[in-house]
């Protein structure tokens, strides 16, 4: 059973501001049934751009209902400019905190609010440059990046807790990792310039094996796959994919985007990975 705060329980058992405002000035729908939670937010504003009423409808678990109820309570009486500054953390704080696995409920609230504000201003929500990273839950790279920055997330697991991205088939884990890496990249670069000694063949093979064992295999295993080092010919690393990876259509992307990147990072930048039949 989840450890919900009394405040979460209170807002779940007796949610405030349920329903829909007729002729609303702002409306937003986020989430979907497939994702397991969805939220419809409607707001009424006065001539001073102040939110005089906010109502919600939610499909979801106790914390999704409580988060939406909390959001509407926070919103009432705020101007649109003040509302714009509300983050998912504000919603979680209002409830005295949420279990880590349930933080995505507060993120859903923030998304609904943003979309509602855009709707009020008549701005299109659609951002054509946004690419879906997690196909299972329809999460875009921008949404993931913002969750990472706002909440200082450092692992795939945390990103899943906040955005659901990566919580389904797991095919997008490397892409999520890339986004995490990108966000923290500038900081790390300043920290340590990399110097690489020249490797003997034997050293190189040992380092490749170590990198596969420590850096690559755990991630693949997490998705039900595996990898086997077949041979090393010059700078060509010959590998065979195993388990789920052997049949996974994304395995080519895994080879180039993940395996090769890791080997280049930890062993030598000139390495090229090739998949061979075993």
């Amino acid at each position, binding site marked *: 059973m*989840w450890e919900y705060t009394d405040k979460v329980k209170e807002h*779940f*058992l007796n*949610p405030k501001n*349920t*329903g829909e405002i007729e002729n609303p000035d702002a409306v937003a*729908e986020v989430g979907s*049934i*497939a*994702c*397991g*939670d*969805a*939220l*419809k937010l409607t707001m009424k504003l006065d001539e001073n751009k102040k939110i005089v009423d906010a109502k919600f*409808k*939610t*499909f*979801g*678990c*106790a914390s*999704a*209902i409580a988060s939406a109820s909390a959001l509407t309570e926070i919103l009432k009486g705020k101007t649109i400019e003040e509302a714009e500054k509300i983050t998912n953390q504000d919603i979680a704080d209002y409830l005295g905190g949420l279990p880590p*696995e349930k933080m995505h409920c507060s993120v859903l609230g923030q998304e609904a609010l943003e979309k509602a504000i855009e709707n009020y201003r008549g701005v299109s929500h659609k951002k054509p440059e946004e690419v879906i990273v997690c196909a*299972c*839950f329809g999460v875009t790279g921008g949404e993931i990046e913002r969750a990472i920055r706002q909440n200082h997330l450092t692992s795939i697991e945390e990103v*899943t807790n906040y955005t*659901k991205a990566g*919580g*389904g088939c797991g095919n997008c884990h490397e892409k999520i990792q890339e986004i995490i890496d990108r966000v923290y990249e500038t900081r790390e670069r300043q920290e340590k310039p990399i110097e690489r000694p020249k490797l003997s063949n034997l050293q190189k093979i040992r380092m490749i094996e170590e990198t596969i064992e420590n850096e690559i295999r755990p991630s693949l*295993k997490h998705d*039900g*796959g*595996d990898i086997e080092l077949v041979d090393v010919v010059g700078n060509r690393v010959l590998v065979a994919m*195993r*388990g*789920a990876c052997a049949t996974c259509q994304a395995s080519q992307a895994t080879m180039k985007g993940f395996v090769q990147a890791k080997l280049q990072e930890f062993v030598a930048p000139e390495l090229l990975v090739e998949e061979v039949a075993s």
Partner: protein
Amino acid sequence: MRTIYLDNNATTMVAQEVVEEMLPFLHEYYGNPSSMHTFGGQVAHSILKARQKIASLLGADLDEIIFTSCGTESDNTAIMSGLSSNPGKNHIITSRVEHPAVKVLCENLAHKGYRVTLLPVDSEGRLDMAEYEASLTPDTAVVSIMWANNETGVIFPVEEAARLAHEKGILFHTDAVQAIGKIPVNMKENSIDMLSLSGHKLHAPKGVGVLYVRKGTRFSPFLTGGHQEKGRRGGTENVPGIVALGKACELAAVNMEKENTHVRALRDRLENELLKAIPQSKVNGTREARLPNTVNISFEFIEGESILLLMDQFGICASSGSACTSGSLQPSHVLRAMGVPYTMAHGSIRFSLSVYNTAEDVDAVIKELPPIIEKLRVLSPYWATSQGACATA
């Protein structure tokens, strides 16, 4: 507040008779059954008596009963033994709807290079027997298919499946954790090689299980060490648990008829009244072959955790196959294997009864659940839309 416990497929209350039977073995007869002295030796005799009771419930011989710590250990032992006693064979057959004790083990074995066939089920949760038969190959080391599904209660034709496996000389294991004590099982009348059961599902305490291994089946132990269980399972015996399981099996033999009349009648009334009172609700799993105590029912357009927590306000205990209750983000693998749509899968609730449930328990759910469903549907953004769609259709 009175607890209305309808989650007996998760775990059961330890029967009063069982508690009384096991208590003396905690502080009075605490000897080690392997000891030479009379004080310890008398405990060995109590284990023998428990073994007789369990063998009697299963229609098994004494030598065919191995005590373990739980259903998961029994499942793991059976499958690993099946593989190591068939060296060179690389194929495992199981179903998509197994308990994690089998499912995760088989997934791990697949990563290690074993070929694993996951048999599909139809929308009613029934096994595709034609596909099963076709998947039996000379390469197959072991088949593991559950006797009854924990989420839907659907009973699989494991005796027939075992017969088909044997025609091809293939070892057959069944996870019967949900079946034992609820439906009659007689190992003298089938050819199943190995069977797992768990004490806490039939009113014994947690921490004791059994692996049945048919005489003549090649076996290699999972836990090695001591000589206990004739060297087939090392580790000092959980004497109170074993004595308790013996008593629980004795009671199960007596209560089986009640399970199939009293419990079945309560379950049927609960199911029928809920379906009548709540529109857009549907039972998951065929009603033709199902455990008498289980009903899995979906309520469209709402989410299971919310239903459970609102029922909790009335002391009603049940389970859900929704994503939020599983700790993962996907709804139950069983309902997904059955192709239950997301609108239904997230709102699934499992009620599982026992002989200790009363008409009042069922009445309470019939009274309290419909307003809970109504409350959540009013809150759901999909409910009004779906109703509008129905009205115009």
